[in-house]
């Protein structure tokens, strides 16, 4: 008999000393020539900023390869210095921020290709389980149009919430937990 899963519970408000004592928000060094900044603000259903959330990202490298044994496509280069994992709290302004690299395209279901994207988990007080979303890139219109996951979202407005927008030197990806303009969230 297979064991039953342990249920999820909220991260609560007091996780910072344990989970954010080291800074994992910069996946590459500040002077990396290909570094990109992704930042955003989290809002609740009343439009208020969420100052006690934690955001985690997971992504492939520029070649489109994940730094994990399950991705054994050895024809693609693996950058040992690039873990692909990041973690950022939200600050007093409800903002999170990552310095990372733009990932390459990765395999999708049924032999299709997925547009470059970053997978995201959001944890917070009031979230009894994490929220899962994805960040897509605004300069990938063609790949985004063909992406099997984006295409599976019929509600165009909802689909648009997954595409970051250019803002100055950074990419902006705001997250709306609830209400008008709610971000698209996934389940497995």
């Amino acid at each position, binding site marked *: 008999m*297979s*064991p*039953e*899963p*342990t*249920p*999820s*519970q*909220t*991260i*609560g*408000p*007091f*996780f*910072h*000393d*344990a*989970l954010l004592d*080291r800074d*994992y928000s910069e996946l590459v060094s500040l002077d990396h020539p290909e570094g990109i900044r992704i930042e955003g603000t989290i809002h*609740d*259903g*009343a439009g*208020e900023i969420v100052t006690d959330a934690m955001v985690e990202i*997971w992504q*492939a490298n520029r070649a489109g390869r*994940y730094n994990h044994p*399950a991705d054994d496509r050895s024809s693609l280069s693996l950058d040992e210095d690039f*873990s*692909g*994992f990041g*973690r950022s709290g939200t600050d007093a302004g409800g903002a999170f921020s990552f310095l990372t690299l733009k990932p390459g395209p990765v*395999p*999708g*279901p*049924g032999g299709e290709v*997925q547009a470059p994207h970053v*997978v995201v*988990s959001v*944890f*917070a007080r*009031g*979230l*009894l*389980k*994490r*929220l899962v979303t994805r960040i897509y890139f605004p300069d990938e219109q063609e790949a985004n149009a063909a992406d*099997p996951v984006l295409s*599976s979202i019929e*509600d165009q407005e*909802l689909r648009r919430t997954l595409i970051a927008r250019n803002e100055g030197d950074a990419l902006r990806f705001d997250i709306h*937990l*609830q*209400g008008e303009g*709610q971000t*698209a*969230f*996934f*389940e*497995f």
Partner: protein
Amino acid sequence: MAQRKGEEAVGYRREDDPPYLYPDYVATRLRAPKKPLIILPRTLSDTTAPAYGRGAVGELDDDLTRQHSGEPVGERIVVTGRVLDGDGRPVRNSLVEIWQANAAGRYTHHLDQHPAPLDPNFSGAGRCLTDGEGRYRFVTVKPGAYPWKNHDNAWRPAHIHFSLFGTAFRSRLITQMYFPGDPLLEHDPIFRSVRDQKARQRMISSFDLQTTRPEWALGYRFDIVLEGREATPMENHT
């Protein structure tokens, strides 16, 4: 095409997780998404996971009673268990992060205003890697209950927060471990947000005499299963 649909039907069962909206837990009311969730097909993007934390674990990170010059006040305990996947296989060499209140029910966090004493010898944060059998082990003190403002006279039962990665982005889990026989459990909306009684029991550790160290510390056992067994497409149709 039929093949692809079959692949998409494969998933992890986590139906015992609490809902996003559980109004008794007031903070869910404005934070729970209302639009339907989109089902994510199984791809490398979520069957892979970060090797986060390996090499980041310090020697005393798994002993929360030895991180300062003196010993913390409270009932010393050993908390141990195994991290398993949905098939009961051990999750090896995987990071486990914990945090908790001190014995008086106070977190070191600057936003915790509960008028209970801070303990200069207790920070309440720990981490370790699971061993070859998926086992983790922490030495700490039993956390106290503490009040929160969710409703009138609201108290959280004693608990330790656990954060786990597993082998896939899909299996990422944050949960809370509770203690057996705690009278606060039946009054706690966070615990009760898990609707299935048997599933609730899986968040409660068990007292374990074998883990208990004579003349030194009580032992508690808490096994963690990161996802339901992978359903096959066939099973999804039954």
